[in-house]
């Protein structure tokens, strides 16, 4: 009974980690290049809506995901223009982007869809043979394809960031943009690329929620996951593997909170819902020392010729 409960939580938790992981790795690229993109939540909402709408009309989950990635790129471009070209204060511009995505997705949902509709979307599948292994099969081999993609992106992101010339430029731009500039690295171009890449991943993360997880769209469906993903980048110390552990911790807490509701354990559900949010605050408080390890130029707009 207890064992079933634990297996249930783990196997429910892993797919819940995928959207956080996609958005978190995307935000990592932003922050490693020195840009704090708080608009992830708004981008995820737009990705969730656009992906859902495309699947509803065309019926193809692949096209839905691509559309969400495209809308993410578009919002990323806006964020990049505002925070890199116009050198705006990044915390506030992120909130602007969040309100834009939230308001627009809610509005377009009411205009184009209106009520509760569901789509088929992407379903989990069981690996032949592997999926039938007791316990392990249930936990690892019965998920939807995007879960595997999200986890595969962990080593890929690590490789790109640490072993490629582009990754080196990203890290240089986020650590010492002045020095990078004197070496002929185009600081603004790298930052544009990182913001747009990160935003595309955020768009995909949003679409995951509607196309692969819930199969419906509702106003504010992300419920703070975009902000949580940003917090997990701090927790993961700007490293892909660290971020992955963070998302797993989180999604397991989330799964635990759900099973508290499902099993009808006598506990006010509003209090259960706050567990993940409380956990973010605790995690941020515990990882405060790690901020010293963060990208040095994080949040500072690059101004050529300035000494800071």
């Amino acid at each position, binding site marked *: 009974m207890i064992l079933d409960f634990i297996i249930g939580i783990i196997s429910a938790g892993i797919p819940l980690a995928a959207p956080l992981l996609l958005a978190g790795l995307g935000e990592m690229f932003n922050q490693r290049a020195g840009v704090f993109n708080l608009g992830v939540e708004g981008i995820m909402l737009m990705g969730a809506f656009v992906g859902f709408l495309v699947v509803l009309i065309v019926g193809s989950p692949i096209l839905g995901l691509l559309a969400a990635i495209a809308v993410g790129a578009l919002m990323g471009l806006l964020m990049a223009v505002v925070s890199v070209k116009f050198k705006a204060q990044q915390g*506030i511009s992120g909130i602007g982007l969040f*309100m834009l995505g939230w308001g*627009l997705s809610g*509005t377009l949902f009411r205009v184009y869809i209106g009520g509760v509709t569901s789509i088929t979307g992407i379903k989990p599948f069981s690996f032949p043979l592997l999926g039938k292994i007791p316990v392990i099969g249930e936990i690892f081999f019965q998920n939807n394809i995007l879960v595997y993609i999200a986890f595969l992106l962990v080593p890929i992101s690590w490789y790109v960031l640490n072993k490629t010339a582009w990754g080196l430029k990203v890290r240089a731009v986020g650590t010492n943009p002045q020095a990078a500039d004197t070496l002929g690295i185009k600081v603004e171009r790298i930052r544009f690329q990182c913001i747009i890449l990160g935003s595309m991943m955020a768009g995909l993360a949003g679409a995951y929620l509607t196309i692969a997880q819930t199969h419906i769209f509702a106003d504010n469906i992300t419920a703070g996951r975009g902000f949580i993903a940003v917090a997990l980048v701090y927790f993961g110390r700007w490293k892909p593997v660290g971020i992955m552990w963070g998302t797993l911790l989180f999604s397991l807490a989330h799964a635990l909170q759900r099973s508290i509701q499902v099993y009808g354990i006598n506990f006010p559900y509003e209090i259960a*819902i*706050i567990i993940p*949010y*409380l956990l973010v*605050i605790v995690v941020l408080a515990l990882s405060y020392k790690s901020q010293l390890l963060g990208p040095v130029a994080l949040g500072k707009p690059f101004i050529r010729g300035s000494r800071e």
Partner: protein
Amino acid sequence: MKKKLYSEAIYRLLIIVIAVFSALFVGAILLLIAKANPLTAYYVMFTEPLSGKFGLTEILVRAAPLMLVGLGIAISFRSGILNIGGEGQILIGAVFGAFIALTFPDLPPYILLPLVFIASFIGGAIWGGIAGWMKAYLSVNEILSTIMLNYIAFQVYMFLIRGPMIDPKEVAYGTGVPQTALLSKNAWLVRIIPASRLHAGIIIAVVLAILVYIFLWKTTIGYKLRAAGAEAKAAKYIGVNVKNYLVLAMLLSGGFAGMAGAIEVCGVHHRALESISAGYGFSGIVVALFGGLHPLGIIPASAVFGLLIVGADMMQRSVTVPASIILAIQGLIILAIVSSQIFFSNIGLKEKIMIKLKLMKSGDKDDT
């Protein structure tokens, strides 16, 4: 010299106007995507609220909480800490205030109302202070912590008004709408224009705005707060305990948002109910930025955004565009305003533009 100040003012105004127009232009594209005619939609939004007593009074009804939240946000931004938690602070303030009003229904209004406002202030201050303390002593990013506290506040608030504080009538009739009982009339703010919802809250808000101005610009504590925000290192050098001032800024900032909760409870709904914060926590950020983070700028700014919010409601009825589009437009306005700052901070760029506009030249001529 006067001419120079004058051309400076024109320059500022010009930049702000261009910023807002570009936000509205992108907003027009969004309206097109939402299957609405942008011209009619904007026309309704900006003019209909001004065309009658109902609209005009409603603008001020919305302006009161916006002003309070905006003031709080200005205090925090000026002190170098970004409070995004207005939404949660309003809720906690509202529930603290409602609790006092429901517990002491028979106190005379001149005692009960101040008590309710103090309780709301304390509630909001606690909620903001948590984030301030964690920023100061654990370097927890305040934007993330205040956002998380918003989600937590909403759940705590809903738990309270659905559970322990629910209106006994809702239980008796089995309707179960999550809201508290109606407050006794002693806790109602006076309606200042008959047959409208306009209540004394707007007067309280304006008085508080003036007090915040005096506090920030005419007192030592206010000066130190702004110093801590403008240049933390320098402030430390002149002996300002920057950490304590961060906490103080968040206590005040949260407290003002909390009082916005009291204004809604005592002035508009006369009870605490689900949608009490109505997005004021986020709109307050736009108001504060639009008002130049200055209390005397926030007074007119809150009227402008009161107009936009009432206008959006009217637009929903007559042009059938969901009122939530206003949230997106406010987001665009934030993006435009923070983008426009470069035209003030980058002096080279500024001079280039001013010369092109011949503002500087005419100013210089008069100087010599």
